[in-house]
């Protein structure tokens, strides 16, 4: 009800007015008589003070006004829902990686599918169902329909993804299901009671917990090491509450680098060293022992080539050149680094470069030398250049000024966690073209939208931008570790193989393409994607494995890795304990949703009319007895 609505509150004031009139009249009516001599023997009033006078007319008027006010305010009662046909059901499915866990003859999703089919088959004719799925996002897989054939097809099309199911996606799915009178939620782990309670405010929620096994192994990470230099490491985790054997194989291309069977203690995580591998390339680690989830049994890593590559570092500051060279060398020890002052490099370029090897990366600090001709370019603290220069025309980066300082509050590189706030030194105000992806932006009220780090692929190759200055040994200062991490990440991305991408499932991947691209997914299915105006196709790998993007004779391989500690941990909580609060929440929510709102408007108006009728009858009787003057 809406008594807090100002308009309804004004209606409520009529009650207060009536009470005021009553209190005013409580002073008792006064009759002027000719003489009190006549009242000498009249009985005195009762000694006790009565605060509330028995005045039927007052109470009738109070009842009338109260009923009308409550009717306007929208008083209602919750009453048991009346069973009937034509109800709307929403079937909500968790499509996270956990639902792909094998149990018995099928996966958990199959079990959920069967339970859903039972619900559909038992529902009375006329009931309608909608199918909603969620993992990273909520998605309506089938709109509300009573066509059972369509529903069966929609249920059959559900495929678990190699991504964790997010709580926000569950909330979104329940919000999408709000039009339904009954929501059936199928998930392999109980959601928070608060989420169910929210959904239960509008519908009856039935939670179906599917799955009970906890036997799962996962490859947590894979570090290829440096070919012929340092050993690689694979981290294996046993999520089971019992010991589990694990047959691990690591391949490099078509050759097997490592193959061993391990015995993992309950819930143990082990680091398996291997190598060093002989050469660079795509490293593929596999768990060959059958377990619940397949998606986390494969993991890819890219080992950079050990062939020497040329890197040019240009900066007017010798200290900066030295710092950047150290960082580049730390990224890849095989890099051969050449440093130079840009002013002198331009004078000697034609004389020294013709016979030189092509540059893998050119790092330019506070300068731009278009003649460098590197495969990738990293601009650090780019100089202010006129827009008609080739630099600006070709790349589209423009610099409009300098800030005294900027802050990094957080940035994310794939699954990397955010970092704490860091104050940087002088920073350029850089405008980047649309094809560049922001990696980090300056934060703060004055410069909230200035990019601090960005990367994109131009016609000449990948281009990276770091907008902050690195003089005074900023890169190697322990207090500015975040700036160093950002720089290392950017260099890694710029020097990575062009045709091989290692990403996490669920991440957006941008691949250079011309026209349309043919995408082959891990399950060998093929789809065609059209490139955007910047010559890129964007795919989002939701299955773990290799994606092949073919366009214009170029082939790019995208390897998607899946691992999520929470999703892969099938035995995070004992099932009985986990199910109890969910069932309790579902029961509580059912108790709420099993009742429906019954407005009392008509009943209240009827009461008001009845009270008015009684009052009118009393007034008529009063007038007949005492005359109109006493009414």
């Amino acid at each position: 009800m809406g008594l807090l609505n100002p308009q309804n509150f004004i209606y409520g004031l009529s009650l207060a007015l009536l009470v005021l009139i009553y209190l005013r009249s409580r002073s008792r009516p006064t009759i002027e008589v000719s003489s009190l001599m006549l009242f000498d023997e009249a009985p005195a009033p009762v000694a006790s003070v009565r605060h509330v006078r028995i005045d039927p007319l007052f109470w009738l008027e109070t009842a009338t006004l109260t009923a009308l006010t409550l009717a306007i305010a929208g008083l209602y009662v919750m009453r048991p829902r009346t069973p009937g046909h034509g109800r709307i059901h929403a079937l909500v499915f968790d499509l996270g990686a956990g639902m792909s866990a094998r149990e018995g003859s099928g996966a958990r999703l199959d079990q959920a599918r069967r339970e859903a089919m039972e619900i559909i088959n038992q529902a009375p004719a006329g009931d309608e169902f909608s199918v909603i799925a969620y993992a990273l996002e909520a998605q309506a897989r089938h709109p509300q329909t009573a066509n059972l054939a369509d529903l069966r097809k929609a249920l059959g099309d559900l495929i678990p993804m190699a991504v964790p199911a997010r709580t926000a996606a569950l909330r979104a799915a329940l919000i999408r299901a709000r039009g339904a009178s009954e929501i059936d939620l199928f998930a392999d782990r109980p959601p928070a009671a608060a989420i169910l309670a929210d959904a239960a405010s509008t519908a009856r929620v039935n939670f179906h917990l599917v799955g009970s096994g906890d036997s799962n192994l996962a490859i947590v990470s894979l570090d290829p090491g440096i070919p012929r230099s340092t050993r690689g490491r694979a981290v294996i985790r046993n999520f089971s509450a019992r010991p589990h054997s694990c047959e691990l194989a690591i391949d490099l291309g078509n050759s097997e680098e490592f193959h061993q069977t391990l015995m993992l203690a309950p819930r143990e995580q082990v680091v398996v060293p291997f190598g060093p591998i002989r050469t660079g390339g795509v490293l593929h680690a596999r768990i060959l022992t059958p377990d619940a989830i397949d998606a986390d049994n494969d993991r890819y890593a890219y080992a950079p080539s050990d062939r020497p590559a040329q890197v040019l570092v240009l900066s007017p500051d010798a200290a900066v050149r030295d710092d950047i060279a150290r960082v580049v060398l730390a990224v890849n020890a095989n890099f051969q680094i050449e440093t130079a002052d840009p002013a002198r490099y331009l004078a000697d370029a034609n004389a020294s470069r013709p016979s030189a090897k092509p540059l893998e990366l050119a790092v330019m600090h506070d300068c731009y030398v278009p003649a460098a001709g590197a495969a990738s370019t990293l601009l650090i603290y780019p100089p202010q250049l006129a827009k008609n220069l080739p630099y600006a025309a070709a790349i589209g980066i423009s610099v409009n000024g300098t800030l005294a300082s900027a802050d990094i509050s957080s940035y994310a590189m794939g699954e990397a966690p955010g970092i704490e706030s860091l104050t940087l030194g002088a920073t350029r105000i850089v405008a980047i073209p649309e094809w560049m992806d922001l990696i980090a932006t300056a934060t703060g009220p004055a410069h909230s939208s200035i990019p601090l780090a960005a990367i994109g692929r131009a016609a000449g190759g990948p281009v990276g931008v770091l907008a902050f200055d690195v003089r005074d040994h900023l890169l190697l200062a322990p207090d500015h570790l975040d700036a160093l991490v950002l720089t290392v990440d950017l260099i890694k991305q710029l020097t990575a193989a062009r045709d091989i991408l290692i990403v996490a499932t669920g991440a957006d991947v941008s691949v250079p393409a011309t026209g349309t691209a043919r995408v082959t997914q891990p399950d060998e299915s093929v789809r065609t994607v059209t490139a955007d105006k910047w010559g890129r196709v964007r795919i989002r790998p939701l299955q773990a494995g290799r994606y092949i993007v073919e366009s214009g004779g170029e082939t790019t391989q995208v390897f998607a890795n899946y691992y999520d500690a929470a999703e892969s941990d099938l035995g995070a909580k004992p099932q009985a304990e986990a199910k109890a609060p969910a069932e309790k929440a579902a029961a509580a929510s059912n108790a709420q949703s099993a009742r429906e709102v019954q407005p009392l408007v008509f009943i209240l108006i009827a009461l008001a009319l009845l009270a008015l009728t009684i009052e009118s009858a009393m007034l008529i009787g009063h007038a007949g007895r005492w005359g109109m003057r006493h009414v």
Partner: protein
Amino acid sequence: MLEARAFEPEFLRKLDRLVLGIKRARTVRAGQRALGRIQGLGIEPENFKAYAPGDDLRFLDWNAFARFDELMLRTYRADRQVEVTALVDASASMGLPEHDDKLGLALAIGASLAYIGMADNDAVRIGAFSMHRGAMKLDATPFHRRRESYVNFRPFVMSVKAGGETRLGAAVDQLLLQRRPAGMVVVISDFLVNESDAADALKRLVAARHDVKVVHVMGEQESTASYPSGLFRVRDSETGEVRETVLGPATAAAIRRNVEKIAMRMREICTTHAITYAQAFGAGNLESIMERELPRLGIVR
């Protein structure tokens, strides 16, 4: 307003046949409770008496001297008009309950008696008394004798308003201070006053040799206690005193008992002082009061 009824021709025609019941004595004798007559010039022989030196020789009866040889003096009765005063209580209590129109009834009775008094060409006047700002205010019309001048009472009667306290003793004092010859005084009031004050006032009027008549006026609602039931405050119209009371059947019975008690006491006082007492309860009973009740009691004939 009921007082206007006293000037309606139809009502006055009913009064034409009535005269005031005034006791007229032939002589004035000490201790006699009657209006005195004074010997003097007149046309109606009254008596004979022996001549005494100093008597007016014009009244010697020479025929009697011739027959009896005694000087006899013939006396005549000199008729004298009686002054009639209708004294109406105009205190605040006469105005309540408004529905009863007690003041209207009292003024109508007073005017009617004045009209009747004019039948004998008696000098008649109407007075109204009440306390105003602590002082007695006694307003009265001039004496009128002939019925042609009855209409002169109308402005006064119509202008009387209820207000102030009832002080019958003070009103009588003021009346007696006018030192008018003894006549007839008709006191018309609800007598909702101090009992001793009323008794004392009436006694003094009688002592001044007035022929006193009392008309006790009460309203119908007042005498039957027809009030709405419930818890009320009642305020005295004259004193302003307030009392909380529960109105209902029990209270109504108590009020009726009080009315009877007051009427009985007034009757006793009047009987004690040989005053004619008449009840006029209810404004609707004006005609029956004038045509039956007052003639029955001898106030009019």
